[in-house]
């Protein structure tokens, strides 16, 4: 019994040690961002001796970083809204309608999930260029309008809503659109929330495609702006860390307030 208690104590100690190791990079990021001249004239320490917000003033005062934050927020909100809307509509179509080619179309939707963006960057780039959408927000928004994963996830949620609800509403004279908006959507709120969080996170963190499309300074999203900040301020670690803090903070807030949906959203698809 005693040895059991001992192993248990050891296990907990190891888990806490590991957790500290996981958190340390975040803590160190914050500390560095508060240490003016870190890496050059100052060395950060666990308890900052003279914390200052200099790095944040440099970041927002001398670079276009504030604009990048706005760009990322705006794009993430628009893309999330579009993906939730288009996915919910299609999910309802697949769950409640019978039409020729339904099986084939659903299979094609699923197949598109197997095609990673990394495979498409060259042809998508020329397509956007021909449409005149390089250095335009639309170049990022348009290819992200639909999500096959969202359709798949929401279709499963709608399948759990009893068809009798639809039928009762039909007898009461409700049309398809009314049934969709007033009966089906409210009943699949948790799935909508999970997918919305997933969409927001993917858009907020996405890098490769915005890097290719949004090259002009004022148009860059946060990750792209951070990457170029690294090119310009390679040794100003306090400024770079301030940028990282700004990029991580909103996701952290979302995680604290909607942990369940964030975990489901981040793991549900298994795709990042």
């Amino acid at each position, binding site marked *: 019994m005693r040895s059991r208690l001992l192993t248990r104590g050891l296990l907990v100690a190891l888990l806490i040690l590991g957790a500290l190791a996981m958190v340390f990079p975040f803590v160190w990021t914050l500390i560095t961002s508060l240490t003016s001249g870190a890496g050059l004239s100052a060395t950060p320490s666990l308890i900052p001796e003279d914390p200052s917000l200099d790095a944040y003033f440099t970041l927002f005062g001398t670079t276009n970083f504030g604009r990048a934050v706005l760009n990322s927020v705006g794009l993430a909100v628009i893309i999330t809204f579009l993906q939730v809307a288009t996915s919910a509509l299609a999910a309802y179509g697949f769950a409640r309608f019978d039409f020729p080619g*339904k099986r084939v179309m659903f299979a094609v939707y699923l197949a598109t999930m*197997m095609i990673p963006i990394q495979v498409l960057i*060259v042809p998508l*780039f*020329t397509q956007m260029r021909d449409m005149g959408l390089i250095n335009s927000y639309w170049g990022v928004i348009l290819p992200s309008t639909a999500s096959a994963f969202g359709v798949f996830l929401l279709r499963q949620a709608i399948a759990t809503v009893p068809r009798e609800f639809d039928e009762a509403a039909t007898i009461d004279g409700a049309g398809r659109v009314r049934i969709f908006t007033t009966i089906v959507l409210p009943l699949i709120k948790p799935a909508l929330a999970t997918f919305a969080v997933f969409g927001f996170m993917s858009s907020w963190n996405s890098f490769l495609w915005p890097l290719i499309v949004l090259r002009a300074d004022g148009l860059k999203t946060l990750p792209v702006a951070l990457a170029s900040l690294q090119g310009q301020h390679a040794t100003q*670690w306090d400024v770079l860390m301030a940028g990282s803090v700004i990029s991580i903070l909103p996701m952290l807030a979302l995680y604290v307030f909607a942990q369940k949906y964030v975990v489901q959203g981040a793991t549900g698809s298994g795709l990042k």
Partner: protein
Amino acid sequence: MTARLASAPASAPARARRRRHIATAYLFLAPSAIPLAAFVLYPMFGAARNSLFQWNLISDPVWVGLGNYGELFTDSATLRAFGNTVLYIVGTVPLVFIGGLMLALALNRAIKGRNLLRGIYFLPVITSWIAVAIVWRWLLNPSVGVVNNVLATIGIEGPGWWTDPQWSLPSIILASAWKDLGFVMVLLLAGLQAIPQEIREAAMLDGANAWRRLRSVTLPLLSPSIFFVVIISLINGFQVFDQVYAMTGGGPAGSSDVVVLRIYTLAFRYGEAGMASALSMLLFAIVLAITLIQIKGEKRWVTYA
């Protein structure tokens, strides 16, 4: 014509209703079907077509047949990027899998504060790769980074990390393990929670010790989750890009170059869009093959509870 009439003796209003039903369905599908066709399927054919031309994205493409594919296998930088990607996977996947499995097993037990611990281990998963890649560049800075400073206090001279060709890929692997650990943990925890408690209790009553229970009961019943985790890790591994771009840019001297970065460089820096597309197609073939293994394997060797 007569057969059709016989099998569908519907009245005109019924047929009109059916037509309306179908039209409504297509209207519900259109907002997602059109973008998926235009921005996923259509460029997919574009990638296949581009891979058969020599092309710098500007002048007229020149037909080279399968020449680009042949060139992929003789171009040393591409081969190196491919080899590095495989090394990255070999380095990251077992590390993250074993770590994630141990964490999942430990945090599936009744431990005080386990929700907080789970939350902390999951934290890196939700962050932007670019932000944390820069953070890791700072932590692993050879001269002023905290890791080498700590190593120095115990008398070890730390390596050059991302500035050293020998250590650039291990640096990326280290950061990736830190970031992906929680992802694997959560997927395996979900699998563990799906195992009925009675099965484990029965094994305990039969006198099986902890190791035996793990080997003969838990792991076999967890195999669907394990299988899924390995497949996803492989697919994500071949697509690795963000952390490489931000941590090393593929260097020094190509020592940490990977497939997707090579696609990007070929197309947008060297004007070799055809070769880049051929490499894209190869990447797609690999992802497709792994996905097919998943579909087949799920049916075959996995034990379901």
